[in-house]
């Protein structure tokens, strides 16, 4: 960073440095230190707190002696300032360096925007023999611009009807969400507005996408399988013929620490359980014209899982993937793909991987409720191919 740029982003301590009188027994201080906070324009991790004007003898001694963390903590510390304006007894961990007649402290983790920190320079007379005035300042990076609170943009399945053994919901957000306690902000209300007890599966680490904009909530599978004890004692979390509401409460904190813009409700009616495995024979493929970039579309007789539809269905030409723009709509009963390149003649097949599931977790040829001891297990990567032919060129 150039000196000009650094200068442009230099932030004087938020409060004036407080110079403390040296102890009476000390000789007259020979340095007059000043604390500054330097903010890197683009890289928060490169911002640092410095004390300049520490005196040449002190600077040389610090360079020569290379103090350890314990000694540095006697020289210069930065601490979190509490809401009561008291400095935390534990100094922040970071790296120290000497630059000219300045000491630079770079915290291991970037300082929080808007948070106040106490920086205190005690001098290094015990190392250099050079006395110094004490310096203390409160420093703070500018608070982040007020961010628009995140809101729920949608929930899949998007239909207002789901089977009694519905397995999961995907909750989509307009921006990144925070890391604290997600499931406690999701509740299931019955048609009298009463919360269903413990319908969902708690998971360590929680189930987010990389951007933290999609949260997956699974129903507890013990409640979703007929005949086993949780299900026999408590029944399905959902009961056929009844209306339910998935409620996302506003207190859920987003990635900027704000509560959601508003709570969100999705109401739906519950149908009979879906116990049947998927069967591609019932899928209706509408092939495109050769030479066109028309979409190929597939209509399913029931909604399939939104997340899996986006990656577990594809088109292959002569056994090679055809790449294009995938869309899922009509309450997850239609999958379309517009190819990047016009359709060329060849052997085409729609392929569905073994991992594809419907709303109740049923897979191709394998229902969620596996009861057969002859079952061979799951094969996520199994390829189920449905050949199709292009229509003639227009």
């Amino acid at each position, binding site marked *: 960073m150039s000196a000009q740029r650094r200068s442009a982003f230099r932030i004087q301590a938020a409060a004036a440095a407080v110079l403390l009188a040296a102890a009476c027994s000390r000789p007259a201080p020979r340095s007059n230190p000043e604390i500054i906070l330097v903010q890197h324009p683009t890289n928060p991790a490169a911002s640092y707190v410095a004390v300049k004007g520490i005196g040449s003898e002190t600077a040389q001694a610090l360079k020569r002696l290379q103090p350890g963390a314990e000694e540095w903590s006697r020289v210069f510390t930065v*601490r*979190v300032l509490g809401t009561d304006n008291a400095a935390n007894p534990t100094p922040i961990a970071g790296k120290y360096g000497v630059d000219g007649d300045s000491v630079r402290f770079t915290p*291991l983790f970037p300082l929080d925007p808007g948070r106040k920190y106490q920086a205190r320079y005690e001098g290094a007379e015990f190392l250099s023999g050079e006395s110094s005035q004490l310096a203390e300042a409160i420093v703070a990076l500018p608070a982040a611009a007020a961010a628009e609170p995140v809101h729920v943009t949608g929930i899949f399945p998007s239909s207002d009807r789901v089977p009694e053994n519905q397995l999961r919901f995907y909750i989509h957000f307009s921006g990144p969400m925070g890391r604290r306690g997600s499931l406690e902000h999701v509740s299931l209300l019955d048609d009298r507005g009463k919360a269903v007890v*413990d319908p969902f*599966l708690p998971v360590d680490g929680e189930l987010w996408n990389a951007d933290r904009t999609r949260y997956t909530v699974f129903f*507890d599978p013990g409640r979703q399988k007929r005949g086993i004890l*949780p299900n026999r004692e408590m029944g399905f979390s959902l009961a056929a013929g009844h209306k339910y509401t998935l409620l996302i409460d506003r207190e859920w904190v987003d990635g900027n620490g704000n509560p959601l813009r508003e709570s969100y409700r999705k109401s739906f009616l519950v149908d009979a359980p879906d116990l049947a495995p998927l069967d591609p024979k019932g899928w209706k493929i509408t092939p495109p014209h050769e030479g066109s970039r028309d979409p190929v579309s597939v209509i399913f007789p029931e909604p399939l899982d939104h997340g899996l539809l986006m990656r577990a269905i594809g088109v292959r030409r002569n056994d090679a993937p055809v*790449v294009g723009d995938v869309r899922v709509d009509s309450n997850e009963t239609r999958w379309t793909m517009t190819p990047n390149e016009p359709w060329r003649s060849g052997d085409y097949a729609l392929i569905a991987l073994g991992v594809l599931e419907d709303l109740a*977790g049923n897979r191709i040829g394998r229902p969620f409720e596996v009861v057969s001891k002859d079952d061979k297990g799951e094969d996520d990567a199994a390829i189920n191919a449905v050949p199709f032919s292009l229509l003639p060129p227009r």
Partner: protein
Amino acid sequence: MRTKILTTLGVVALAGVASYWTAAGVPVAAADAGPQMTSIGPLTFGPDGVLFAADTQAATIYALELGDKANGGAAGTRGVDAIDQKIAALLGTDAKEIIVTDLVVHPRTKNAYISVMRGQGTASKPALLRVDGAGKIEVVSFENLKHTKVTLPNAPNAGTNPQRDPRQQSITDMAFSDGRLYIAGLSNEEFASKLRSVKYPFATADNGTSVEIFHGNHGQLETRSPVYAFLPYSINNTPHLVAAYLCTPLVKFPVATLQPGTKVVGTTIAELGNRNRPIDMVLYKKDGREFLLMSNTSRGVMKIPTDGFASATPITQPVKTETGGIAYETVAAMKGIEQLDLLDGSRTLALSRSDAGLNLVAVALP
């Protein structure tokens, strides 16, 4: 040794199935730069003090060779009250801004290692801390930390949609045994609990396929229930994994049966009660007997004698009473336990929640 989810559970025992396969990721040795972790979750120690740390966000396991960073502190771990606030101060923030994700004890120094996520949203950063016998807390710097890593294999993809894949694999627990690291996880799309293994050192990666693990305690085979806590355990000199599921079957699997391409039926040896989720488990000996100590979300800490593990009658029918199989006792003195590991021959180390915050406490083994 994982984060407690505060929600309690409201169902009774559930059979569990996990898929097992060997990791097929490409290990990368990186000696110069430190590990570039995007997140930090479960921890477990391996041979020679190697610390395995799961980057759950990147579906990657790092083997951190702590070397000199494991030395220098006073041996042991002293309890620290309100340790969440002290860690937060050390990391330059407020206790509300950190989440403790795991706690483990170094097998030689007996120092505690605590994994933490600092901050919210996508700007959140991983941190690793060490607590020594004097109660001193230090950040273990990742800079130039020698390590190797293995990335878990990608989920199958049909190859047509180039959009960014939102599918992620959450890693819920890890354990090391007999040269292999075992990794339990759950996807955020397909409902498939996975148990993976990978050889360590990560010099050669295996190309296995998935194996499903069943246990048959409800008269019908169950699929895909997630393993929440597990550990290696030898029964009659045969290596096993003992795993705990939601609401709360305890199940044993012979390790030798966990072969790619086969289906494994585990044996349920205890039903430990409903509305409950296991958090951590450790083994210890006292007065000539061996016990499994297991922390839970809502049923406290259970002390389970292991001498019946070999001979326990398999539970194959629904349990009509509150619990069944091997009996346990609840350790009344241990409350609010969120993380647990064995400290030494007579004490366990725990993170327990109180009104004042999270406390690191050494507790005599019950």
